[in-house]
């Protein structure tokens, strides 16, 4: 079993999080290096996620490493009934690190337990996606100059959205103030509010988006998916009031930045894209530098 795996954002201390972000800053300044020369990275995608896979693979290639793997389960041996344990052992004969995406929750923790090489979790079902969380933190720090004492508005599907749950965990080190804006059906679950109370994190809740984020430094939008709703009439109503439009930004703070894990459906009107407060495309690009930092860290390479 490898001790260097990254499965969940809570595996990293505050110091480790900050070190990753520092390292990512270095990669942004100079992304093309040869530190992975001669190394092999496996990208095992048991479910397709082209966006995440391309980001990891580009990170490896820019570090001079090589890639093996598969991009969906149909082409992998698991479709022939091989256990995850056996797949991981087989691949670890060839690769120095495994980047893994899996539709089942807990798959990454289990893989990290049985794997002789480090595992990087690129998403396990609805559970964790730590490289997304770290690139969110990187984007926040880069645009605000700090992670400390920020007002952060989380908007949309707060019930099922794993990115917002992980973001709460990660930001808990930095004294944030949260506002949770969600329709009744998709409200923040009680266990995360308990988490906030236990860590002395201030939060408030609202159900309307408009005029509710004027003191925010970060507006973190998430996808509101149709299949989450029992009542489709309610979905139609929510879909419209949770669409961010350019004119809603008039009274927002000058330093406000809008983030979204992408892909968006219709939570952000395209008329916001040209506003300088829109940051979601740069946010996605930051993923590359953060993933270079993560792979370097789990492989013990000084950057």
């Amino acid at each position, binding site marked *: 079993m490898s001790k260097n795996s990254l499965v969940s954002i809570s595996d990293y201390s505050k110091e480790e999080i900050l070190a990753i972000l520092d390292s990512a800053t270095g990669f942004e300044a100079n992304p093309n290096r040869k530190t992975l020369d001669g190394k092999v990275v496996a990208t095992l995608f048991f479910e397709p996620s082209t966006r995440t896979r391309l980001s990891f693979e580009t990170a490896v290639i820019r570090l001079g490493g090589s890639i093996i793997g598969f991009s969906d389960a149909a082409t992998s041996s698991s479709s022939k009934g091989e256990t995850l344990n056996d797949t991981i052992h087989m691949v670890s004969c060839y690769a120095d690190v495994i980047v893994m995406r899996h539709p089942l929750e807990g*798959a990454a923790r*289990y893989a990290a337990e049985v794997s002789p090489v480090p595992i990087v979790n690129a998403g396990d079902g609805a559970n964790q996606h730590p490289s997304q969380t770290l690139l969110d933190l990187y984007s926040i720090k880069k645009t605000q100059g700090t992670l400390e004492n920020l007002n952060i508005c989380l908007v949309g599907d707060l019930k099922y959205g794993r990115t917002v749950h992980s973001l709460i965990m990660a930001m808990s080190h930095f004294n944030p103030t949260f506002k949770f804006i969600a329709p009744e059906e998709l409200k923040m679950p009680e266990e995360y509010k308990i988490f906030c109370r236990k860590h002395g994190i201030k939060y408030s809740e609202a159900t309307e988006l408009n005029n509710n984020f004027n003191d925010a430094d970060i507006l973190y939008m998430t996808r509101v998916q149709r299949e989450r709703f029992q009542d489709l009439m309610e979905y139609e109503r929510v879909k419209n009031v949770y669409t961010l439009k350019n004119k809603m930004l008039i009274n927002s703070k000058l330093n406000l930045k809008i983030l979204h894990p992408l892909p968006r459906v219709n939570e952000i009107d395209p008329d916001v894209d040209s506003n300088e407060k829109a940051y979601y495309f740069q946010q996605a690009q930051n993923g590359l530098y953060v993933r270079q930092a993560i792979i370097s860290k789990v492989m013990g390479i000084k950057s």
Partner: protein
Amino acid sequence: MEKKLKVAALRNGTVIDHIPSDKLFKVVSILHLETSKNQITLANNLDSAKIGSKGLVKISDRALEEDETNKIALIAPNAKINIIREYEVVEKRPLVLPDEIREIAHCGNPNCITNHQPVTTRFFVIKEEGSMRLKCKYCEREMKFEEVKLK
């Protein structure tokens, strides 16, 4: 009086008393008594002044390990466990909630890896805000004890 007699009937071993009647067979199951070769006496639906109706288990020639009695704490926190040697109670075993439980339960999350692959389940026991919850080590879901299925 009745209790004294039953305890006295066992020469060496373990007596688990004051098990709520509807939990008796869960206790049997988590201790894997169905495959045990020891002499075992089960009694159920006995009158109890404290809990109305109780069950009782006597296992000859086996002193339960601490991790086994701690598992009982999850199911029957008010049970009484006595270790018997030569007809005497030599130890009253306090029930302590374990910090972690292994193997004895299935995760309540159908999308959890442990329900699809041969993985030994592990749960952290969380005691806070007056309630007990279990957190699956793998899928990281928190659930109430009633939400997991005992094996």
